[in-house]
């Protein structure tokens, strides 16, 4: 009878512990998914801004078609890559980041050439577009920071004892954070 009681208590304790750990892991995984959705939304916001920006610049600097085309092409390529949060492998993330990094670089070059066109710089619409672009780059940086924070919290949970046992049973895998890249995903310098 005593043994039975002890076993019962042990089983109940295990269940209590498991459900608690399990729920925490689910919540934190959801946090990562949410943060990732925000990252994608902010990159999409930048992509939406590009046609307008390109058209405005075209009006003043039509013969810079090479630079303009580079931006458009990089944008097209980047918007084709979407990453399912369920499938956030390091390779996928790398691919995503590389494509977006190309957009950043192309945009950086575009902004750099606008320095040569005082009329364009004085254009109110361009100034506001530039402000929107800068704000979007800021938002991207912030959403990436929050994503990395969520990933770190989740990964720490998954690796801690005894959570790691339950994580193994329910297959909660480690997630990949953004790596700080050398220049590729760096926000273009927007000078006023």
């Amino acid at each position, binding site marked *: 009878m005593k043994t039975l009681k002890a076993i019962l208590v042990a089983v109940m304790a295990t269940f209590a512990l498991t459900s608690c750990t399990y729920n925490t892991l689910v919540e934190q995984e959801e946090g990562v998914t949410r943060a990732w959705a925000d990252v994608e939304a902010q990159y999409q916001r930048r992509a939406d801004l590009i046609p307008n920006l390109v058209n405005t610049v075209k009006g003043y600097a039509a013969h810079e078609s090479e630079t303009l085309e580079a931006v458009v092409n990089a944008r097209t390529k980047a918007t084709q890559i979407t990453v399912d949060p369920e499938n956030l492998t390091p390779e996928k993330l790398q691919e995503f980041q590389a494509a977006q990094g190309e957009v950043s670089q192309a945009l950086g070059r575009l902004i750099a050439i606008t320095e040569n066109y005082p009329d364009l710089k004085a254009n*109110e619409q361009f100034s506001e577009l*530039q*402000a929107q672009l*800068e704000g979007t780059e*800021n*938002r991207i940086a*912030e*959403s990436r920071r929050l994503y990395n924070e969520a990933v770190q919290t989740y990964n720490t949970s998954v690796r801690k004892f005894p959570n790691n046992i339950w994580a193994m049973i329910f297959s909660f895998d480690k997630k990949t954070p953004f790596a700080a890249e050398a220049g590729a995903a760096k926000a273009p310098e927007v000078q006023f």
Partner: protein
Amino acid sequence: MRRTLTFLISVIATVVLMAATYTPDNLPIPYLQDRTQYVSNPDGLLSQTAVDSLNLWLGEMEKTHGVQTVLAVVERIEGGETYDFCMALGRKYGIGRKEQNSGLIILLSTGDRAYTILTGRGLEGTLPDAICKRIENYQMLPALREGDWDTAMLNAVRAITTYVDGDDSLVGSSDFDDSDTGALIGFIICMALGLGIIFFALWYDERRKSYCPSCKQYKMKKISGYTTRNKRLGIRTHHDTYRCSHCYFTKELHWDENLNSGNGAAAAGGALGGSFFGGGGRSFGGSFGGGSFGGGGASGRF
């Protein structure tokens, strides 16, 4: 000797320069002590008149639309990047109400010649980046180039108010009035409690004096009394004679009165009331609601 002097001067210069450099951690936020003060003007770059007007408008904006603002004008910030400074400030204090994320930070660093209007996540629709930029270009820049910080800030806030007023989806903070009334109610309760304690002490003192040890009834009345003074100790001694109206038992009561602080019980009651009053007063300070910033707004240099 000259070398020492140069060294000393450079040290002093460094200290003076350091003193005027703010970080998000050491920037004074007067709002926390007094909820009517939205402007942080530690270097005195804005005139008192401008600060008063700004506080009034920003207070109105919080009351009617729940937009919680911190406006700071400083000489210099660490790093010189106003955007990073504002983000760190927003993260540290959670400016803006949590439900609608309606925080707003306006920073001007005159020494760095840089400024930022940072909008909370919930304000990005009301004040899009392009609008913030337009406000900066048209309302602030001309005055900033003249070094007229007052006009730049007054114009910017006036323009922002127009946009915020046009957005009905932003609701005034209900807790703004509630906690005001709450503080008032708290204050009244504390005052009543303090007064109650004083009156109870006085009443208890009287009742104790009227207790007749012979017939155990509260029927003693004072029939005569005189006082003696001891100037050296600063006390006055009362010698009172009480007689019971029931059994005619008489007793003498001798009690000392401190000439410096009056009746002991009343003094204690007063002190209690006073400390309660202090507690009530403190709650007039503001608190930030935990709003978050996603990086919206616009920055610039002049």
